[in-house]
């Protein structure tokens, strides 16, 4: 059985997108980690131990602690969106694993409705961009488009979950095929094709867009540094090291 052109295009598209995303992110992460941090600049009060810093960071990632202090609206919408996204992504793992991991099955029912959290959160964030004068002022076209893209991905996904079901078994074969370099036919409903094209596009722009906030957070010196400058001489930064040891 020969593969259709559409299947070939989508297979190629996902290979390229995955490659760009992986290489791009690795490049960025290596670049961040190679760039020196010449001074101690944690935003204080800051933890005085490494484990304290890990806890601080975990709070930022899991509950968006700083954002919570800053603005309850952005926090609630942002958190609904990200937590929804996380559940939805985890749920998607069942298209990539055989047999499906047991915990993916456990969250499956929640994942299904998490898409509502996600889309509601994003609609809230989008509304703020239009309604709050300060946020409108700082928004660039890409800020709106990023939200629109994600909402569109979410909505097309929900359509397939709740309204126009696609051939999930065949879809899973397609993705498992991609993973084992043995391309299988892709079901060709319009909703699915749109959904997948947008996902591939999102992966493509991930490393060159503001989505870099995800790796960026872990490299933020104001959050990841231990507050111990009097006890420990912070002097490992490349270029500054020379400077710091001359009289």
């Amino acid at each position, binding site marked *: 059985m020969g593969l259709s052109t559409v299947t070939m295009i989508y297979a190629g598209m996902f290979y390229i997108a995955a490659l760009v995303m992986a290489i791009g992110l690795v490049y960025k992460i290596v670049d961040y980690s190679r760039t020196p941090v*010449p001074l101690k600049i944690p*935003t204080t009060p800051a933890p005085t131990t490494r484990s304290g810093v890990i806890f601080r960071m975990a709070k930022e990632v899991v509950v968006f602690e700083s954002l919570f202090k800053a603005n309850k609206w952005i926090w609630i919408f942002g958190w609904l969106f990200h937590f929804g996204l996380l559940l939805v992504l985890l749920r998607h793992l069942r298209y990539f694993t055989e047999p499906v991991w047991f915990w993916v099955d456990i969250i499956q029912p929640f994942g299904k409705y998490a898409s509502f959290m996600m889309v509601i959160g994003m609609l809230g964030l989008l509304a703020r961009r239009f309604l709050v004068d300060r946020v409108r002022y700082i928004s*660039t076209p890409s800020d709106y488009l990023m939200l629109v893209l994600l909402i569109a991905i979410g909505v097309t996904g929900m359509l397939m979950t709740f309204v126009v079901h696609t051939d999930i078994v065949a879809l899973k074969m397609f993705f498992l095929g991609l993973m084992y370099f043995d391309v299988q036919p892709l079901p060709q409903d319009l909703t699915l094709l749109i959904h997948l094209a947008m996902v591939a596009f999102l992966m493509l722009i991930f490393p060159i867009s503001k989505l870099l*906030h995800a790796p960026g957070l872990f490299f933020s010196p104001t959050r990841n540094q231990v507050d111990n400058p009097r006890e*420990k001489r912070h*002097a490992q930064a490349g270029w500054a090291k020379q400077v*710091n040891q*001359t*009289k």
Partner: protein
Amino acid sequence: MAAPVFDVPEIKNEIEIPKLREGVMAHAKTFPATKPVQDFMGYPHELPEDWKERAIDKMGDLLGKYRSLKVFLDACVHCGACTDKCHYYLGTSDPKNMPVARQDLMRQVYRRYFTTAGKLFPKLVGAKDLTQDILGDWYNYYHQCSECRRCSVYCPYGIDTAEITMAGREILNHVGMGQKYSNEILGKVQKIGNNLGLPGPALEDTLEGLEEDIEADTGVAVKMPLDVKGAEVLLITPSADFFSEPHVESLIGYAKVFHAAGISWTLSTHASEAGNFGLFNGNYETMRKVAMRIRDSAIELGVKRIVVGECGHAWRVAYSFWNTLTGIGYGGDDPFSIEFQKQLDPNYPQPQHICELTNDLIKSGKIKVDPSLNDDLVVTYHDSCNVARASRMGTEPGGQFTIPRELIKSVVNNFHDMADGTIGEATFCCGGGGGILTDDLLEVRVKGALPRATALNNVVKEHKVNFMAMICAICKAQFTKVLPKYGFDMSMVGGVHQLVSKAIKLDKAE
């Protein structure tokens, strides 16, 4: 050149988030540095022909040197959480004073020259070619940021606009757009030893005069030693403490503390300045050169401890950077720091804040105080931004909030904090920090003080507060100048050690 006339904002019951009004602070331009000043610093004094290349090159250079800059310019999602956090936005309503918008002044250029998206689709991602107009915006708005880090508390990624401002000023300097105020000061401290340009003999005279005043006042011969070899403590304090009011009252307070505790101490002519404006300009080498004067003096005088007086940004540099820059601290494993760290007394934190020192002495009973001597005062405490969000005191996180308050409460009976959200890590900058404490930016300073003035006004109404204590020379100078514009008396402003000075018992503790 007279500064423009402007309306002083009205204090409301609460700190309000204004609707934005574009361009209302576009006229506020700090005076540019002149040729001799820029020459000394090694910068051009006018826009060179190849300014654009130079600016972009410098930006690339800084991006390679500071992870903070690179990550911060990439990571912002324009969520807007920081937009209402800056006192300059709250006081002026100019949208370019919103932290993220201030960052975007640089981010738009960063995206255009350093990112794929900005090179390919500039309009889409808000990327712009560098123009003289943009440089002008940088000059205006990077001098309407006091590098107070309030925005970094609230940003979900900890993006610290101060880092961007510092980089911006550094680039501006490299294309001949230096600021008169800061660069003149950096010249003075390097040539003379302090920001005020007060030469050794004048300092000696001043200190002698103060000794006489104290003796006339108390009957006790409290000394203000200068350049005394073999003293135990070297006190590094902002030069404003030597003869600005109310700063000098705190200097008298430190002297009384050392006297009462029987600790031998000294000031230094060579290092007669705690302040380090190298921080404000983002020039690492300058900051280090200024800091090295302190190490050099400590070695020369053979002291065992280094204590820092009331100054906010100085404490940030001392606490957070001295160890890195000069080896003043512990834990260095290279010859440069080991050599010096051997000289220090390991029983004390190095450097130590004067509030840590005094608080310990009072708690351990080594000095005695009588808080009723301050019963005429109802006191509140202004957390200075650099102490609050860029340093620590004591051993626990947050010691920078508890130790000064503990100290104040041990020397006064009436104390009331200002509202939550305006103190501690959320404290509002005085409006004059970060190299903008100059009359040519008076409008920015007055408007930037609005949130603090509002919070103060509320405790004045509610608790009859009549004294706002603080531990920063810039805050003191700023508030004595701008609070009167809001109808407060300038005698409300003073140092924590001004309170200590009044309450301390000078006769030997039994």
